[in-house]
């Protein structure tokens, strides 16, 4: 992979400051992303993955705040920098793709105008160059450059999403952060978008952090996988490793929850219960109320991430049933 990681997140915690008290939506999350690596982050709705993404990109807004931790990118800690200081890094080195392109694109400006805004914000570029680059990125994602003159509502859902990706690549950044860009699309469009993203990644060598709730989809494209639950990282490791040998009971539950097309027909197993209210987390392990293997120790000790074979797992119980001391 890489010598130096392109992104290094350490101990990042995000709080929502509410009248009733602070709620910790992201709890002590750490991970690295190597150059050109594709990291998938999966989790249920409300597990904090989107909040985590916004925290990394410094796009949080009140009442959310980074409470602790650092985000090392390009040699700087992004946490605590002002918007002015961040603008040097934004879009040139790190760009963002959001979930719904219909909401993420300014409805009263043409696609071309929005591309131009991004380019103008990072140095005086002559109009001709702007037009050329804009056409170039659109073609990279398979859209006719004539649509630079179109408004967002005039494009189809898939085209909108792809033009967002094109916009994210205007400066061929080192890192592209994507927040569920496929969730609003149908299955076929999803797949073709993922394939396109992967091709672009291989061609231009940027790293990708991809958040989704769709584990089956991401597993075909990611190099490493991070599973989040209730604001914490529960398991992290190479995709293949996690799929072949899921170690955390939650991950196991997830993988058992969807059927294999080619395998034998078995009844679907869900994970009973629902994720905890982050304002009132259970004592000890957060997954304990839903875990089929919970023992007494799980209620007393909140587990750390323990290295187990080639992955990190937040569970006191090893595969053979023995407990981590």
């Amino acid at each position, binding site marked *: 992979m890489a010598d130096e990681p392109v992104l290094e997140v350490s101990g990042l915690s995000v709080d929502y400051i509410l009248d009733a008290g602070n709620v910790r939506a992201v709890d002590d999350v750490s991970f690295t992303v190597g150059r050109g690596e594709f990291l998938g982050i999966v989790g249920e709705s409300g597990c904090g993955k989107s909040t985590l993404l*916004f925290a990394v990109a410094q796009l949080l*807004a009140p009442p959310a705040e980074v409470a602790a931790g650092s985000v090392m990118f390009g040699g700087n800690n992004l946490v605590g920098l002002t918007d002015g200081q961040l603008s040097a890094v*934004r879009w040139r080195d790190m760009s963002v793709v959001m979930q719904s392109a219909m909401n993420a*694109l*300014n*409805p009263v400006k043409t696609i071309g105008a929005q591309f131009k*805004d991004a380019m103008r914000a990072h140095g005086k570029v002559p109009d001709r160059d702007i037009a050329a680059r804009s056409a170039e990125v659109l073609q990279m994602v398979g859209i006719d450059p004539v649509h630079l003159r179109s*408004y967002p509502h005039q494009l189809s859902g898939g085209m909108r999403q792809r033009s967002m990706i094109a916009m994210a690549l205007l400066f061929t950044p080192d890192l592209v952060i994507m927040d569920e860009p496929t969730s609003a699309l149908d299955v076929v469009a999803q797949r073709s978008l993922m394939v396109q993203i992967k091709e672009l990644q291989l061609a231009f060598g940027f790293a990708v952090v991809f958040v989704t709730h769709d584990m089956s989809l991401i597993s075909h494209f990611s190099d490493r996988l991070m599973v989040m639950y209730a604001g914490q990282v529960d398991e992290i490791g190479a995709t293949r490793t996690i799929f072949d040998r899921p170690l955390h009971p939650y991950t196991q539950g997830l993988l058992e929850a969807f059927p294999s097309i080619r395998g034998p027909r078995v009844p679907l197993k869900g994970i009973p219960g629902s994720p905890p209210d982050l304002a009132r987390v259970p004592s000890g392990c957060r997954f304990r109320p839903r875990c089929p293997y919970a023992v007494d120790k799980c209620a007393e000790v909140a587990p750390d991430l323990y290295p187990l074979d080639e992955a990190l797992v937040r569970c006191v119980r090893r595969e053979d049933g023995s407990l981590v001391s």
Partner: protein
Amino acid sequence: MIYALRRLGFFLFTLWIALTLNFFLPRLMPGNPALAMMSKFHGELSPKAVNALEILFGVNTKESLLSQYFGYLHQILTGNFGTSLSQYPASVSSVIGSAIWWTFGLVGIATILAFALGTFLGIVSAWRRGSKLDSVVPPTFVIVSAVPYFWVAMVLVLIFGLTLHWFPSQGGYYVTTDSPGLNFIFFQDVINHAFLPAAALLITTIGTWILTMRNTMITTLAEDYVRMARAKGLPSRRIMFDYAARNAILPNLTGFAMSLGFVVSGAILIEYVFNYPGVGFMLLQAVSSEDYPLMQGLFLLITVAVLFAILVADVLTALLDPRTRTAR
């Protein structure tokens, strides 16, 4: 295009309703008020004028209601609003004509100023959420907008007109010393006299613009495309105006249409307090002198003006929003 036509159709329909209301109201009231009015002015009117009034109010006529109605419509649509009774023998249209420019100038300028200033303050207030500006401005203007228009006018008259003598507190110009004409002295006089009424109108109406713009901006600022603009590293000013305000102002323009009714009420009351020779003042004078033809004519005029302004605002909104512009 179709949208504009549909709106136009709606407005014509509303106009027709207003005309019909004008027709039926005096006839519905117990003891046709027109009778009293006519007897008051009896003997002063020419037979033609009497006849026109009879058609307008359905007095002394043996015609059926329906034919009266069509006669009325015909009369109105040919621009004949009858003869003014208090300013006999001037026709209603000419009487209105003399007042219309005063109101137009006063209300037009004050409203545009209020809208522009209010919208700007609303944008800045929303942008600087949680700052001192934002904690002072909204509550202040919430209270100010609940204050009756005439009271603000009275306070201004008292303080700046009668006590401090900074501005005149009556009339449109010094009737005794000046005469209307295209000369500098006259203009200066007019502006002098219009200052306090305009200030009153501005103070009472600006609150609505500030508050609605602020609220729509706050909702807009929470949109993903604003967050996206931040992510792209765009400068704050560009985000505030180009991304947030341009979207937030769209529902505001529609709100502008709604508020016009209140601007009109304000204008009428303020003109009354200042004796400002505009359309509103004239309406109230017509009421007190029971000059019903004039009153009806003014009501129709005001209605048409408001409808026209709303139509303009609608068209503007459609033009500014590409989603309605492009035919789907």
